């Protein structure tokens, strides 16, 4: 494994009795990536992250972190890794400061310096509440404290499992900005899981999609977006007549009638001619939109995967 590969999972899987929660997961996260692990709820994202962080023992496959086998060299493999799994939970009866000391000491093998703890809490805006018990914190503050405890030991790789879950729009925006800051300014490699497509689309450089416990695809976000570049939404009336006309056009591929309108694959250069033909046939054209988004790609690929 080259040093630039931070995480590699090979045929990773977890089986509970006769049900695979996650299987054949072959992830590759490179240094500097903001890697999005995308999938619907229950797809197996959290199970995968828990296996990477050694909370769950895999039934099959292996995990390598920084070139070290997690099973054989757990302590060394996790030395530069931090994470938040599902939601950050703390010792509620202790202050944020003490929680940070406890989390830090488990990584460093000694109690972290008070100044370092306070500086990290200041980074997430919690310095003034450092000595308050965590049970008095709001959900957003706990989320920030979770990020602070992850950053305390200067990790090179952070795993965030659904980091914006339960946050208001402002909180979600702050987390996205923080992810960008950590990646760009601190050079931290990040793996974040989400069922929110726009979250991954906006912050991730590479991604993988997990659906029904299996990994469906993995690659550069921009490359994956290109695959859906020709998807076009036609808003037409009457719908059935319009669908028949579009289906008959040789330049229009795979049309499907949806609640929004008709979605089809059409190259940009053929759109004017298609619209002209529709108008000539008496169809009213309310709009033509490019569906060049991860959402379309995700829905397509999960639907295809679901049909198999």
């Amino acid at each position, binding site marked *: 494994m080259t040093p630039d590969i931070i995480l590699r999972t090979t045929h990773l899987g977890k089986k509970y009795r006769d049900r695979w929660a996650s299987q054949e997961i072959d992830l590759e996260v490179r240094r500097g990536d903001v890697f999005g692990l995308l999938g619907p709820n229950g797809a197996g994202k959290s199970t995968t992250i828990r296996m990477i962080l050694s909370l*769950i023992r895999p039934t099959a496959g292996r995990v390598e972190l920084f070139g070290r086998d997690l099973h054989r060299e757990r302590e060394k493999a996790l030395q530069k890794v931090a994470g938040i799994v*599902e939601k950050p939970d*703390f010792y509620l*009866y202790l202050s944020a400061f003490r929680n940070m000391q406890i989390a830090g*000491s*488990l*990584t460093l093998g000694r*109690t972290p310096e008070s100044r370092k703890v306070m500086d990290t809490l200041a980074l997430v805006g919690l310095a003034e509440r450092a000595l308050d018990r965590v049970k008095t914190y709001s959900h957003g503050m706990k989320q920030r404290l979770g990020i602070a405890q992850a950053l305390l030991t200067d990790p090179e790789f952070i795993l965030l499992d659904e980091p914006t879950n339960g946050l208001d729009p402002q909180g979600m925006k702050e987390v996205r900005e923080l992810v960008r800051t950590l990646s760009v300014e601190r050079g931290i490699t990040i793996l974040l899981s989400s069922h929110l497509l726009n979250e991954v689309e906006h912050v991730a450089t590479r991604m993988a999609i997990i659906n029904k416990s299996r990994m469906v695809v993995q690659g550069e976000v921009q490359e994956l977006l290109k695959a859906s570049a020709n998807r076009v939404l036609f808003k037409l009336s009457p719908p059935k007549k319009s669908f028949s006309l579009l289906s008959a056009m040789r330049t229009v591929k795979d049309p499907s009638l949806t609640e929004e309108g008709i979605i089809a694959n059409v190259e940009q250069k053929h759109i004017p001619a298609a619209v002209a033909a529709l108008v000539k046939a008496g169809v009213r054209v309310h709009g033509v939109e490019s569906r060049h988004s991860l959402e379309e790609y995700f829905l397509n690929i999960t639907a295809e995967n679901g049909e198999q």
Partner: protein
Amino acid sequence: MLNLLYWELFKTFAKWRTYIGFIAVGVLIPFILWIMWIEGGDFIKYQLRSLQSEFLITGNLFNGWAIAQIIMNGLWVHVPALIALVAGDQLSGEATAGTFRLTLIRPVSRARFLNAKYLATLLYTAALIVVIAAMSVGLGLWIFGSGDLIAIDREGIVILSEADLPMHFLFAFTLAMWSMFTVASLAFFISALVENAIGPIIITMTVIAVCYIITFLPVASVEGIKPWLFTTHMNVWQQALRDPYDWSAIIDSVLVLGAYDLAFWGTTMLLFVRKDILS
């Protein structure tokens, strides 16, 4: 390891429930002493009434040592519940709170983490016994003075001289601590099996109660298993109030209790290092 132990002790002693045991002991022992003070030695006289018809008893038998022995006999049934209150929360409490997701993703082995927790549990147990010892003996001697001790049990009467009693009681509390380590180990083990705070306490006390019933059951068919039940050896501390010591009985009890400690700790370790953290 020391750093891990420090933080486990910190967490243990930062919880309110940890102090319930100390508060209970801190209230109960002075209360018992106050009752004894009011009774003015009637209790001791009542206990020794049969002896007084056969022997001429002189000196102060209503002393701190006698009071300490009475307190030990009285509290010994309740102390396991106070220990289970804390030991039973060590692993189940973290599972319930979800804090394993904070701690077990760190580069520290689960075995070391568990050992630190187990040691913290034993240290809490030891601290509780030390407080019971200090309060019952210390306050007893301060209020009622010193003297010889007449220890009566199923095997007979022993008169322990005042000069030897500090060593006898030191030995008695050490053995008591050893037997309470088994209770702590049992509660700690059950704590690894369940994910709620109250379950380990109830299960621990149920196991102890069932074993006690078997221990005192006068039925021939269970005689064979009695020597192997930990409850049979829980009152090993009483052996320290004999002269001479029955070393064979003491060593047997210490070994059986130690074997239980090892078994509970070992099984907990096996379960914990393989446990999937799903909470």
